[in-house]
């Protein structure tokens, strides 16, 4: 926000700050008086969409969040689930969409920094990051991109992609948390409003769990880390919670924040040592709404009051007023609540790591957050305003009223266009281009082809946990000191959600869970990032509500508790709302990992290849229709959650590694998703450069399929496996036992991807797929 809080302007201050008249009335009734300017600014940032979830809260409440293994569910900085051996896995997903649209490198970098602090705040060492990303097309229509995309637009999107990826690389690598997974998708709806979501995973001894509470009177509030500047002031309400066009984006430029991974690294190590020594009684990261949020939430959670002296806050800019200090979103800061007897130890630990720690507040009786400013007091009192009850606060409000915020039940309405879209079946498209061309095109599509260009720039091995790294259906990380491993996958299916947000969101969950199952893991928790358009549009609220129900339904069916998430609204591009883009991350647990799980592809000749699951004529919302016709219409594939569940269980049994032989029943496993069976088979060939001779005429025993349907249909609940001939009988028995159809497709070998109805060169396919993203970015 560029206007200063005290500036008059013609419009009343509360409106300038983004509060409505009704919200102002609510504040007056809470306080029993008119708020002053500082109080008003504190309410405005805390009651922004980004901090208060005012439009989404009533819907999020419908997500199932309980399971016996959930230690901390939604509502805290991150979810915590028990994984055995006294350990907990800590997970969270966040978005940094709007900052990344303005400055892709720093926007993505500070997004990484922010999510890491959320994990750290629980008491855990952050051990892995993942970045699901969405951008506008990076190829103009003339270069094979979707219809209507100009070269200028594509060039801008390429700039955003490169900036975001190098921001993630630069910050993530330097801060010392490996980035082990990610995801790309491209479509016009994200042009100018990229989605930069970040997932972070931590592991901790459960007895180190710390919460964001200030429950003991007399404890001190220590601000750790970076100095406080004007950067990001109002970033929450302006950058993250309002749609913007190009002109406004330029006006907001000065509030761009720069990440300092070195400071964050020191903060991580210092905090882990503080936890190890048990010297903090509560801790909260400073993210959106800065000190206002951290102080009010810890006090409210502890049922206490807090007194904060802004004069004690170390600043890097001159002339900052209290409202600015309380609102600043300067990065790389944490608020630790420390008992007096532990102050010395805490300071010593911070000093050793070169982390500045200043006492800025104190836990006091009552339930108010009181802000004092002792900068003009005598020297012996200056910076110690939290100790004296004489100083008159410059702001004083009930702490809980800031963090609770309003709750809206915004009007909802099904988009008028949706029925027409669903009726526009892909049947009208005919058989499309020649099958070989279609397959090559899909492999070369940057949404489908290899993302190695990106993950080569990410340190994905640090901590020596990465057993299956980026590029796989799911990432597998061993948990050192135990026999266990964690597996996770991030997924989003926006095209499907645009056609049917409820079913599409449910599919998203199913796909992530299936990915995790291919590594032999049992899904145990989910976090979601709800990226949607303008909540003031009833269509968007309908999409959000439907998507929540879809996620809830799938989670219930698959026994998956939702342990946290994030909501990002006002994502618009060219005045149009983005496709509804819920992104989920599913975490799975492997109890005994003795060897890497089977790879996605086959690495030898002579293996038998089977398709598990059933194929229907389901091209609605498919990559095939989109890639060749920029067509989005028809019904999306059906979802049989029971079939997903049975397939998941089967995959787990098949992929499990035997402790003695250190091998599993199957030689490879890969699920079918974007691009259907043909793309899945091609990817299996590409991984180790071993071809396939198959016959797909048996595919689709339920209905007779056209060749392009057999190849590119995106029916759910399917996977491709390969087995040694001596294991075929066991595979078939296991599939039969799980009630999963297994169809023999052919056997591995050679240098062709020969699928009967189509036959392409493995070398050419490899080249198309491996260079897809890098070529498009040139």
């Amino acid at each position, binding site marked *: 926000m560029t206007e200063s809080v005290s500036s008059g302007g013609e419009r009343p201050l509360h409106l300038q700050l983004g509060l409505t008249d009704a919200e102002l009335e609510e504040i007056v009734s809470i306080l029993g008086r008119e708020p002053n300017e500082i109080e008003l600014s504190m309410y405005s940032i805390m009651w922004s969409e980004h901090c208060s979830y005012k439009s989404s809260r009533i819907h999020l409440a419908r997500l199932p969040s309980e399971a016996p293994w959930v230690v901390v569910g939604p509502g805290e900085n991150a979810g915590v689930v028990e994984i055995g051996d006294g350990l907990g896995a800590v997970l969270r997903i966040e978005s940094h969409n709007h900052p990344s649209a303005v400055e892709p490198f720093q926007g993505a970098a500070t997004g990484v920094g922010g999510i890491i602090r959320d994990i750290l705040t629980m008491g855990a060492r952050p051990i892995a990051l993942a970045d699901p990303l969405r951008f506008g097309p990076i190829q103009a229509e003339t270069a094979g991109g979707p219809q209507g995309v100009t070269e200028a637009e594509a060039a801008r999107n390429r700039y955003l992609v490169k900036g975001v990826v*190098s921001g993630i*690389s*630069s910050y993530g*690598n*330097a801060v*010392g948390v490996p980035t082990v997974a990610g995801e790309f998708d491209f479509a016009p709806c994200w042009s100018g409003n990229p989605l930069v979501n970040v997932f972070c995973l931590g592991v901790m001894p459960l007895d180190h769990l710390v919460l964001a509470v200030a429950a003991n009177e007399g404890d001190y509030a220590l601000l750790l880390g970076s100095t406080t500047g004007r950067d990001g002031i109002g970033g929450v309400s302006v950058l993250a919670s309002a749609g913007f066009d190009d002109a406004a984006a330029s006006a907001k430029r000065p509030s761009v924040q720069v990440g*300092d*991974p*070195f*400071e964050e*690294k*020191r903060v991580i*190590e210092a905090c882990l040592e503080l936890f190890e020594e048990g010297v903090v009684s509560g801790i909260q990261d400073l993210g959106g709404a800065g000190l206002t949020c951290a102080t009010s939430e810890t006090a409210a959670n502890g049922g206490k009051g807090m007194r904060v002296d802004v004069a004690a806050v170390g600043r890097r800019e001159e002339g900052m007023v209290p409202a600015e200090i309380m609102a600043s979103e300067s990065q790389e800061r944490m608020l630790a609540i420390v008992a007096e007897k532990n102050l010395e130890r805490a300071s010593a630990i911070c000093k*050793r*790591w*070169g982390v500045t720690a200043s006492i800025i507040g104190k836990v006091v009786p009552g339930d108010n957050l009181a802000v004092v400013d002792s900068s003009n007091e005598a020297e012996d009192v200056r910076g110690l305003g939290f100790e004296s009850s004489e100083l008159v606060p410059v702001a004083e409000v009930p702490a809980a009223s800031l963090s609770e915020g309003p709750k809206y039940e915004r009007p909802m309405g099904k988009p008028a266009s949706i029925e027409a879209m669903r009726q526009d079946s892909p049947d009208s498209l005919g058989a499309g281009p020649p099958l070989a061309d279609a397959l090559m095109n899909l492999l070369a599509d940057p949404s489908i082809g290899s993302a190695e260009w990106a*993950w*080569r*720039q*990410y*340190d*994905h*091995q*640090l*901590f*020596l*946990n*990465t*057993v299956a790294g980026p590029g796989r259906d799911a990432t597998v990380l*061993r948990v*050192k000191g135990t026999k266990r491993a964690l597996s996770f996958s991030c997924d989003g299916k926006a095209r499907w959600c645009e056609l049917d947000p409820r079913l599409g969101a449910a599919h998203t969950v199913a796909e992530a869970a299936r990915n995790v199952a291919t590594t032999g893991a049992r899904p145990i928790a989910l976090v979601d990032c709800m990226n949607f358009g303008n909540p003031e549009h009833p269509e968007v609220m309908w999409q959000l509500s439907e998507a929540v129900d879809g996620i809830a339904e799938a989670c219930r069916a698959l026994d998956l508790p939702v342990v946290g998430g994030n909501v990002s609204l006002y994502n618009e591009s060219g005045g149009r709302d983005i496709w509804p883009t819920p992104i989920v991350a599913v975490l799975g647990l492997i109890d005994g*990992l003795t*060897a*890497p799980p089977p790879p996605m592809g086959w690495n030898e000749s002579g293996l038998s290849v089977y398709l598990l699951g059933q194929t229907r004529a389901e091209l609605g919302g498919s990559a095939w229709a989109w890639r060749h016709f920029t067509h989005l219409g028809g019904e999306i594939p059906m979802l049989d959650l029971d079939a997903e569940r049975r397939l998941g269980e089967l995959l787990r049994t098949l992929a499990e590694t035997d402790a003695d032989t250190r091998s599993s029943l199957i030689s490879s496993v890969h699920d079918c998703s974007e691009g259907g069976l043909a793309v899945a088979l091609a990817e299996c060939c590409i991984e180790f450069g071993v071809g396939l001779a198959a016959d797909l005429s048996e595919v689709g025993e339920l209905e007779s399929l056209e060749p392009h349907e057999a190849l590119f249909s995106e029916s759910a609940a399917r996977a491709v496996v390969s087995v040694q001939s001596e294991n075929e009988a066991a595979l078939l028995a296991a599939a039969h036992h799980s009630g999963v159809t297994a169809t023999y497709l052919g056997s591995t070998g050679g240098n062709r991807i020969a699928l009967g109805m189509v036959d392409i060169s493995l070398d050419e396919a490899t080249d198309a797929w491996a260079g897809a993203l890098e070529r498009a970015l040139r």
Partner: protein
Amino acid sequence: MSEQGGPLVAVIVFPGTNCELDVVWALDCAGGRGELVFHDVSDLSRYDGAILAGGFAHGDYLRPGAIARFSPVMDGLRELAQAGRPVVGICNGFQVLCEAGFLPGALQKNAGLTFICAPANLKVERTASALTSLCTQGQILENVPINHFEGNYTADEATLRSIEERGQVILRYCGPSGDTSEEWNPNGSANSIAGICNEAGNVVGLMPHPERAMEEITGSTSGRPLLESFVESARQSHGAALGVK
């Protein structure tokens, strides 16, 4: 040497270092015993050798290793080096050793100007060093991860000539069959240099991360001969005189 287990190795931690726990883990795999030593410690006399772990000491701000080289621990490292005990800098540690003048040359940004985290093949060019004594001349170590933005080894002509003549290059990037031509050079390093040593061979710097290639389950065991050589030379230098006695 420690009572239990192998030689005791100081694993140096600067603020911003991030591979220290990995190096301790890998030393354990190689039969040594790593102990974290913070950069403010200057007496390393109880250690049989030292490894400067990778990461981003002081954020790599200004230049990688530029600020780190002023830490008190550098005195201790100098003493170890002079006493002939093995001192190895991995990645960021290599950058620190060059900045501090333990090793010639400097490391610049990769020729492709992007960070690279990828497997590389290495050819052993000299076996008389703390890191390669158990290797054979010309041995190819497959799939040893590299993970850096500034790993492009640079030196002026005269320096390059001198280190080549004195056989100070211990590892070069190569293809699967040992071809060290430009085609296999991932970062533009002069003469495809991946690692060098001092004349005595006890001070070594390399960009690749042998500690990431110690176990089948994480993808490669090609780092083992390197770290096992290191542990062996630490074992042999146990008790070597420190300073002028």
